């Protein structure tokens, strides 16, 4: 049986930072498993930057202010002990990344350049033009190669094997050969990314953002925390939902309605376009609802205008953004405004992490970091530039945590792992043989449609209940589906089948959490409960999966420095 001291699942920013720091103990055998080749991971799609109070551009900035901005941005749902831990350590991790070779853009003093971002009281977003995530991903991958981390490329997580809150290892498929293996591990870091694909095409997310690690943890008894908080990025390209970086607004872009008005003055008179994402997304949708957008229905949009920045600034700071608008919307933003509309972007919720310094979960041996996890750093709304920061910082500490766990635990026996692997092997065999059934594509598209229409930017009870019922029906239909490919080698139809199962499992949790939270907070905006209600809902949602049943519970928010107050920008 394959055996590693530490297995990291996912090879994005969080996973590879975890693998890198776990591999600092040369006596440990560390493997990093990913369903795609590492540099394909979605960290690479992050464009605008990474927040750290370096004070390079504004020497009055401080980790304390970053702390406060993040808590306010979270609509006071973030755990303040976690935020403080994070903001304090961010400046040193930027230096570390610099030392790993990340090609940051520089200021006139040769220091890492910084730019303004939404919801931040100071220009503290460090960047590399508009390819920040891409260069961090590649640099961290290079460091992992240097440290001789074992990469299991194109291996797909199927299950975590847990008994009585103790983790024994995992079951995964080597996609290239089609073989299914039990893998024994003393500790595991789940860093498998978000699950924005519950909205399928109405998202900035890559095709493979299907929450496999989150779903596996959920099945293994770890609750999902705050799943109802889904971030919609204000500036998705109108026709495809592809992301245009927040750096567009950071560098001074305007948002215009069809009357040519900078409508943000009505919603955030002070911060204007640099208000946080939840507020800007809602403002755009309100303009469209009021008939001040262009086009109608799903085709409606507003404009983002960058022309006044000038060609030189656009080419220096936003070259990739310009190319994206050209290639995917046919618009040259140096010459005309670009049509945009909010698109599902990020999951604030995820695997319940119980200690922000070790990234432990309630199951012994399992740690989690990155978008799949909920620390909770972002609370009800994440600030732009805090996600790449989240992955590198908490990825690093998850790696250290997993290293310590591995040093303390011993390997378990083979029995359970072999049993579970056999179960998956049989399932694979059955699915390969099955020749007819309900259409998987139809199930997927129905799920995305109902989630977008009923559990989207604006929410109300009866619509969400309808969505929940639809998802429950789809979960039944899913049992009757088929994959249509009998091959063993590289059977993506089977992988996609498991992914859609994971999405359904998580979509149901999103809908349940959203129905139960009868207030508006951050990204969760209830038309039937427009106010934030701290008396009843200043708490985290926890959803447990027990067999086929979901159980709702709560846990308190850590409040150390900032008592909740009204959130205005």
């Amino acid at each position, binding site marked *: 049986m394959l055996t590693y001291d530490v297995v990291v699942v996912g090879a994005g920013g969080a996973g590879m930072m975890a693998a890198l720091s776990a591999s600092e103990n040369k006596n440990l055998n560390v493997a990093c498993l990913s369903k795609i080749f590492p540099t*394909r*991971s979605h960290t690479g799609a992050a464009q605008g930057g990474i927040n750290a109070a370096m004070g390079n551009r504004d020497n009055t900035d401080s980790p304390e202010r970053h702390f406060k901005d993040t808590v306010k941005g979270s609509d006071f749902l973030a755990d303040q002990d976690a935020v403080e831990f994070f903001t304090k350590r961010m400046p040193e991790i930027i230096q570390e990344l610099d030392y790993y070779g990340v090609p940051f853009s520089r200021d006139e003093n040769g220091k890492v350049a910084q730019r303004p971002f939404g919801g931040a009281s100071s220009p503290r977003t460090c960047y590399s033009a508009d390819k920040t995530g891409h260069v961090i991903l590649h640099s961290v991958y290079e460091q992992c190669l240097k440290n001789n981390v074992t990469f299991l490329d194109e291996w797909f997580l199927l299950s975590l094997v847990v008994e009585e809150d103790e983790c024994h290892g995992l079951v995964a498929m080597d996609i290239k050969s089609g073989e299914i293996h039990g893998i024994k591990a003393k500790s595991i870091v789940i860093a498998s990314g978000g699950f924005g694909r519950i909205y399928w095409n109405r998202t900035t997310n890559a095709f493979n953002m299907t929450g496999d690690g989150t779903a596996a943890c959920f099945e293994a008894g770890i609750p999902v925390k705050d799943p109802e908080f889904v971030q919609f990025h204000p500036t998705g390209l109108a026709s495809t939902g592809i992301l245009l970086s927040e750096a567009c607004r950071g560098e001074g872009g305007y948002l215009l309605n069809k009357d040519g008005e900078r409508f943000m003055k009505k919603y955030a008179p002070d911060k204007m376009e640099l208000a946080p994402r939840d507020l800007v997304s809602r403002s755009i949708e309100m303009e469209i609802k009021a008939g001040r957008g262009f086009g109608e229905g799903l085709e409606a949009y507003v404009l983002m205008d960058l022309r006044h920045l000038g060609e030189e600034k656009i080419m220096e700071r936003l070259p990739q953004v310009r190319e994206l608008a050209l290639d995917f919307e046919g618009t040259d933003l140096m010459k005309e405004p670009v049509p945009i509309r909010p698109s599902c972007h990020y999951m604030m919720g995820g695997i319940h992490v119980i200690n922000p310094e070790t990234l432990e979960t309630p199951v012994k041996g399992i740690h989690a970091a990155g978008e799949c996890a909920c620390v909770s750093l972002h609370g009800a709304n994440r600030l732009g530039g805090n996600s790449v920061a989240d992955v590198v910082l908490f990825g690093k500490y998850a790696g250290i945590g997993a290293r310590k766990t591995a040093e303390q635990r011993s390997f378990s026996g083979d029995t359970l792992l072999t049993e579970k692997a056999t179960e998956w092997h049989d399932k694979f065999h059955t699915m390969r043989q099955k020749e007819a059934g309900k259409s998987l594509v139809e199930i997927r598209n129905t799920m995305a449609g109902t989630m977008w229409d009923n559990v989207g930017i604006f929410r109300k009870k009866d619509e969400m209940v309808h969505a929940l019922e639809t998802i429950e029906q789809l979960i039944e239909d899913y049992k009757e589906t088929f994959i249509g490919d009998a091959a063993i080698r590289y059977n993506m139809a089977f992988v996609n089948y498991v992914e859609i199962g994971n999405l359904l499992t998580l979509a149901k949790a999103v809908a349940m959490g959203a129905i139960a939270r009868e207030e508006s907070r951050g990204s969760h905006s209830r038309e039937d409960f427009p106010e934030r209600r701290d008396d009843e809902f200043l708490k985290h949602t926890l959803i447990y999966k027990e067999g086929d049943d979901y159980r709702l519970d709560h846990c308190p928010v850590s409040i150390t420095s900032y008592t909740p107050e009204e959130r205005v920008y």
Partner: protein
Amino acid sequence: MDKFIFHIQRFDGEKKWLQRYELPYEPGKTVLWALTTIKDDLDPTLNFTSACRHAICGSCGIKVNGHSFLSCKTSLDELVARFKTTALTFEPMGNFDVVRDLVIDWKPKMEKMKKVNPWLSPASHGSKSDGFIQSKEEADAIAKPTDCILCGACASECNQLDVNDGSYLDPFIFNKAYRFLVDSRDNAPDARLKPVVENGLWKCLHCNECVTQCPKGIPLTDQIAYLRQRSMENGERNNQGARHAYAFHDDVRSKGRLNEMMLPVKTDGVVKTVTKKIPFAYRMIAKGKINPFHFPKKIDGIEGVRKIYSENEKERV
């Protein structure tokens, strides 16, 4: 035009075949749209890789009618206009092992990339706790090479890789070596230069196909030229490529023109020339391609040529 016709190369690990699919024409669609629509609506057994769908993850490169493209950012309308047909052939990228259908294997490429030590070897003016100071100009030098998304289009197009025994480095690996060589934070030029010289630096055919198809516009052949210069400055002169370059350099400097008869001797040495090149030279002479009795004299105005050399050398110092 009412439909697209696609001939897609299939491979199941043993046999290879071309399979025909048709989709109704829709304007403004991409190659990736075609692939996902075929998989969703027509054939779930078709395999390809893709992720971000906006040209940053590098997963979705394939060959269309013999040329490599990122399928997410390549418009079908443009391909139809370029190839003047609505029937397009999709194949996996060249110079990679194929796993299934259009899926290729990256693992061996990364093993090869390790030869150039593809990680920063930090210079002593930086530290893990304080990072580095790097000027804007120094940062500009690494801006373009770090645009590389490892999509493999350059390798797929490479004519040297096509005929090579497998040791030749893929263009994206030369880019990686270059990227660290020109980084002001790196202090290990030898760790890049020695392996590139040993692995075919002088074998680049200058066909420029890699540059033409790079979706990020990285000037790969300029980088290879730079690596050659730097390797010679670094003392890597006792190899066929460097000797060949010096033969040109020295001849033109002394006479203003090339001595073709002496070129193989200077490049390969006397022994190799006599044993390997003589029959070839005979054939060249027989066809009137070279004249063994031609000893080039100095050209008129040789002083001017030498002045160009010395001015250039001054500048480089």
